[in-house]
């Protein structure tokens, strides 16, 4: 990152055009969302005409508010549930895989590595459809509903922990675990007591990324959803946005937004605490895409 000092030393005049483009872009990117959030507090049914402030669509309305409408509740709960389940499966699986692949040379690991990488960059619809086919034509563990959704999400998200942990492993190097083994630790102990401690920030970061990404997921979750109890907030938004939405939908979306931002903020600060004093530790968050 450019330090403020080098910025002050920068001999160039500030290009106001670029600044204007940036400010314009920020307005354009955030204003519509803020408007949508605003209308979740609308007193009337309309999502375009402001009729006064109220919490009606959060808990006031006895039938259609997020609090009272069972289907909106379920969507919210299921979203978080999928986030937790996927994170709990993906992170250990991915971390172990990263460790193993990093120390295992050969065709199998490089093929596995390649598959993980390919799975990340491919359009999500490919993973979703292929698993949907498995779920609809085969009698297998991949079933429409929570199981299928978690399997799909884990497959899609596995690359986060694998890549983040491997990047970190490269900076750590071999010295620590070799020292531990020289001092009489078994490989298991060396990995668990030494390596894992050092990998903790990376593991933590990947958990946050996976969680935040899963609760916003749409394609995999929709194709592999079963009955209504396995529809998440984004599926609900998609289904209802085209039919007859009320501001309760905006309220649901606002709650999701708060959940995402909260998860990321917590992750961000915890990560900063964990990696205090290390340069470039935040790259995981800023280079995220």
């Amino acid at each position, binding site marked *: 990152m450019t330090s403020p000092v080098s910025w002050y030393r920068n001999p160039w005049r500030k290009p106001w055009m670029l600044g204007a483009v940036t400010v314009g872009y920020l307005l354009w990117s955030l204003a519509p969302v803020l408007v949508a959030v605003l209308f979740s507090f609308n007193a009337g049914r309309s999502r375009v005409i402001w009729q006064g402030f109220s919490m009606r669509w959060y808990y006031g309305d006895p039938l259609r508010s997020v609090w009272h409408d069972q289907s909106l509740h379920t969507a919210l709960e299921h979203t978080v549930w999928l986030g937790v389940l996927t994170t709990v499966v993906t992170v250990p699986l991915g971390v172990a895989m990263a460790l193993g692949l990093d120390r295992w040379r050969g*065709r199998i690991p490089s093929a596995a590595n390649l*598959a993980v990488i390919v799975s990340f960059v491919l359009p999500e619809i490919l993973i979703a459809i292929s698993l949907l086919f498995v779920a*609809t034509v085969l*009698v297998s563990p991949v079933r*429409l509903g929570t199981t299928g959704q978690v399997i799909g999400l884990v497959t899609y998200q596995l690359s986060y922990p694998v890549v983040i942990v491997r990047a970190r492993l490269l*900076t750590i190097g071999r010295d620590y675990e070799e020292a531990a083994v020289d001092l009489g630790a078994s490989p298991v102990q060396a990995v668990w007591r030494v390596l894992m401690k050092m990998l903790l920030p990376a593991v933590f970061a990947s958990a946050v990324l996976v969680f935040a990404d899963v609760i916003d997921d749409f394609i995999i979750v929709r194709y592999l959803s079963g009955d209504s109890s396995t529809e998440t907030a984004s599926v609900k938004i998609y*289904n209802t946005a085209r039919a007859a939405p009320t501001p309760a939908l905006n309220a649901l979306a606002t709650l999701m937004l708060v959940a995402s931002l909260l998860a990321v903020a917590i992750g961000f600060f915890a990560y900063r605490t964990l990696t205090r004093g290390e340069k470039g530790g935040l790259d995981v968050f800023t280079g995220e895409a």
Partner: protein
Amino acid sequence: MAATRGPASDPARRLSRRALVQGGLLTAAAAPFLAACGVRTHDYGELIIPAPNHPVKWPLSKRYTAIASGQKPKPGSVLRIYNYADYVSPRMLKDFESKWGVDIHLSTFNDADEALTKIAAESLGFDLYFPSYDSVGKLIQANLLRPVNQDYLTNADNLWDSFRDPWYDRGARYTIPYTIYSTGIGWRTDLADVDLTKYPNPFDVFWDTRFKGNMAILDDWHTAMAMVLMRDGINDINTTSSHALSRVRDELISLRSTMRPKVTITMYNDMPAGQYGLAQFWSGDAINMPYYLPKKVDVDVLRYWFPPNGVGEVDNDLCVCLGQGSNPVAAHYFMNAILDETSAGQNFGFTGYQPPLKQFTPSQLVKQGFVPANLATAIVQESDFEKGLPLLELPVTADTEYHEIWQEFKSGG
């Protein structure tokens, strides 16, 4: 991030190509394993298609038996209902839940094709489904339905007499009627200056370029294509004639390119919101429009047209009990509730779709305020079913042909 760079060696490049080949080989090796997982297959004889002039009495399913009489739904059990969005009243669901202590999970689909695919997977355990009679034959012949135990349907006497023993299911062994509706033309006088009398055929209105970009047609292949057939003066809306179908195709393509129609099933929301002024309409959605209309717009601007001679698309939807469900008893109670006057009233009030019950006589609907006078054309009469044209199930080859035309239409030129 910084650590991941580094010049890669040539062996690495070769490796990746090998890895690809290897991946392919591994997949091929996995084939027998996949085959061992087991595939769902169906085995049945000739496809039977019921029609008004060819009524069918279905044999009782050997796979699923009717439930024993006299049971009560288990409190706390889950009833899984699979239906279109906004096609059952939330109030009715809540009342049913609190009356029987049952937890209802309502899942929705966008069109009958999607529904059939998910039901055929048989893993979701839906108890109740709401098909049109064009898919009832398939569902029964693929052994997916559970016969209904009539003992539970104490409200069946409320049904219009002509619906007690329907042609698509003689003896009402598998189905109960849910709603009745016609398919016609809806418009808003303030957004579209429509005068159907000035066209040789009223359906020509959908090809009138004055309404370009201001119209929509139903996202339902058979309903939409039947409209095109009727425009061509072909009242056999289940035709298998390739000649007629190729005309339908040409007209749909010209409709798409000259009119840029929206293709959707959410007219009941979009037209009140002012997104377009003219659309192909289901009568139930037309009746439902006032509910979605902004307060500042007068209900008087809404119109619905159905051929005054009664020769138009008239259909009814059904409710069936799926064998895959785990709560058939509650399902039977729910079917009975559908036939109950109060519940049916709640449903009608919410969805706009008319129940074929004696309590809802068409002449009373306007008087009781269910339907505004300017939409009285959307009310379905019992006699409409005598002259009306039903959408039937199609033989496989024709079905494929219809679907291909529809697919071409939807992929956009």
